[in-house]
Each structure stands twice: as structure tokens, then as C-alpha cells.
């Protein structure tokens, strides 16, 4: 689709040349400066939902053979370089990162997310970020129809033990005992932990207790 809403054929994207990557990181850095100029209170780096950072992280989309592809350490490199660039602008305590380890949105995918995302968390920990924000495995930026991780534990169970800062999780929260009206997002009773009955099922994320 074009910017004015006209439907056209998809074009086949090409991989970034290794030499182009610093320029993309500069774009994130400049956008962080722009956010400062606009008066925001901080910045969240969106590394979920099949966006560029997740394309580097997950093996379904990252077929690179340079230092940004292959091993887990290599695939996490782009996330870390973007994060450090944004931290240079804002300071770590005003920067958050959003990830969707079990996400399948927009053609992403990782057969075994925990080793990859454990490494990412371990790399992010020493930076002292404001928070880390996970989309719950039970949910998806693409809607539930694509989700096949209903039996995976909550991101709070998976990542609270290893992330040292404030943890936010989002997705699949709903009102107690009330069905969701949207048929695409069927309500599942008993799925939400008792202290997490929220006013809206997906529009709000719940911050779990800070442990620092």
C-alpha cells in the first residue's frame, strides 16, 4: 500500500549492506534527539513485532553472514548498538526497550527464544535502563490468530528472575469475568493472574514490582 492508500504489489526487500548499518543506527540516534526536542520524558526502543531490530534478533528473518548474523551474540549486536546510541542521547535511566521473544508478527520467528533473549537481557542489564518491556508470549502484535505459544509461561515468569530493573509486560490482560467483545481476541477465563485484572485487555501493560 502506498502512503495515500493505494494498493500495490509488495516489493521484495533487500538486506542492508553491512556498511549501511551505521547510518541506520544514526537514524535512531537522531530520532532520540528529536524526541528530546519534542519534550518527551524518555524513549522506548521498539525491538518487537517484526520491526527492524527484531528482524536482526530472530533467525527466521536474519539470514546474514556478517557480524550481525549467525550466532546469538551477532544477532543481538544491532539491538545493543541502537540502544547504546540512544542511551548516549538520553542517559540510560530514561530509555526502555521493548521485545517480543515469542512474537510471530510480520513474519518474524525464533524456534528457541530463551537462549537468544536471555543473552539479550544479560547484555542490557549492565546499562541500567529505565525498564524492559515484553509482549507476553500468549499475545502477539499481530493478533491472537497467529499465536501458537499459549502454553509458554508469562514473560514475568521467564524474565523476572534474570532482568534486574523494572519489568513491563503487555498483552492478554482482561477484565475479570467479562468476555471480550472482539471475536478475534477471545476471552480466556482463568488466564490472568488474580492481581492483574485490568481495565482493558490489551491497551494497558502491567509493571511488575521493581527489584532494584
Amino acid at each position, binding site marked *: 500500500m502506498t502512503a495515500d492508500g493505494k494498493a500495490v504489489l509488495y516489493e521484495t526487500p533487500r538486506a542492508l549492506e553491512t556498511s549501511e548499518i551505521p547510518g541506520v543506527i544514526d537514524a535512531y540516534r537522531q530520532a*532520540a534527539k*528529536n*524526541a528530546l526536542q519534542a519534550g*518527551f520524558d524518555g524513549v522506548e526502543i521498539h525491538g518487537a513485532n517484526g520491526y527492524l531490530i527484531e528482524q536482526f534478533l530472530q533467525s527466521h528473518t536474519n*539470514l546474514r553472514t556478517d557480524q550481525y548474523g549467525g550466532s546469538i551474540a551477532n544477532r543481538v549486536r544491532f539491538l545493543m548498538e541502537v540502544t547504546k546510541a*540512544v542511551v548516549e542521547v538520553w542517559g540510560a535511566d530514561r530509555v526502555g526497550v521493548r521485545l517480543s521473544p515469542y512474537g510471530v508478527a510480520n513474519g518474524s520467528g525464533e524456534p528457541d527464544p530463551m537462549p537468544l533473549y536471555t543473552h539479550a537481557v544479560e547484555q542490557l542489564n549492565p546499562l541500567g535502563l529505565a525498564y524492559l518491556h515484553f509482549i507476553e508470549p500468549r499475545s502477539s502484535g499481530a493478533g491472537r490468530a497467529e499465536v501458537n505459544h499459549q502454553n509458554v509461561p508469562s514473560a514475568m515468569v521467564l524474565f523476572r528472575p534474570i532482568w534486574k530493573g523494572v519489568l513491563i509486560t503487555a498483552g492478554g490482560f482482561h477484565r475479570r469475568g467479562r468476555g471480550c467483545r472482539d471475536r478475534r481476541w477471545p476471552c480466556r477465563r482463568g488466564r490472568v493472574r488474580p492481581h492483574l485484572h485490568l481495565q482493558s485487555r490489551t491497551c494497558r501493560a502491567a*509493571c511488575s514490582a521493581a527489584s532494584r
Partner: protein
Amino acid sequence: MNYPSLFSPLKVGPYQLKHRLALAPLTRMRAAKPSLAPRPLNAEYYAQRATPGGLLIAEASPVMETGFGSPGVPGIYTEQQIAGWREVVDAVHARGGDHLPAALACRARLAFLVPARRRAAGRAIGGADRRPEDR
């Protein structure tokens, strides 16, 4: 209060939140076209969701022209867009004590809506060549 933890304060970075409900970044596709700058509608949207001492995370905003994945998503790379975001931020802060981080995103590879006149940079880019079965 039934949920003591949810409605207790939390320090996030330098900011003292009064509760632990946050607005997740939600793609609304309501920016002005063709500038892709936030407009009064966007300011109204965020101000409606503001609560004292709350945390609203702005929708994922492309950091570059080739980083779009959906029409009408606000960008954060031109002066006009920055000015639009300033209106949004001011509207939220006017509601009292809310904290609003911007969400920076690049959706390259999903960037199928780059207008033809901006195609000079070439094809949409991605982290890697996508697999044939991807759409």
C-alpha cells in the same frame, strides 16, 4: 484496595509513578498526511488516556522515511513531526504529572508504502533478505 501492588507507586528511571498501569505503544495510524506529523487528534487521543503519575508510551514512530509499515503512522524525523509531537507531549503533561516516553521504531522490510517519488533510495531495506514464504 484490592490490588495493592498494581496501585502502589513505582520509580521508573528518574520518574515517580503513582500506579503501575501503563499505556503500551499502540499503532493508531492517525497522523496527518502526507506530512505524517501528529495533529490535534493525536494530542486529544493521548490526553484522554493520561492519569496523574501514569506512564503512557507513545506509538511506535519510524525513525526514518523508509521505516514505515502502515499508512498514517506518525514519524519522528522531520521538524513538522517534532512540532506535532510537541503538541501531544504538552497536552499529556497538562493533564498533570504524566510521563510520556516516545517509542522509536524502524519497520524497514515492512516498508512497502514509501511513495514512488521517494524511491530514490532504492528498494525497501531489511535486516536480511526475507524468506520467500514471507509476505
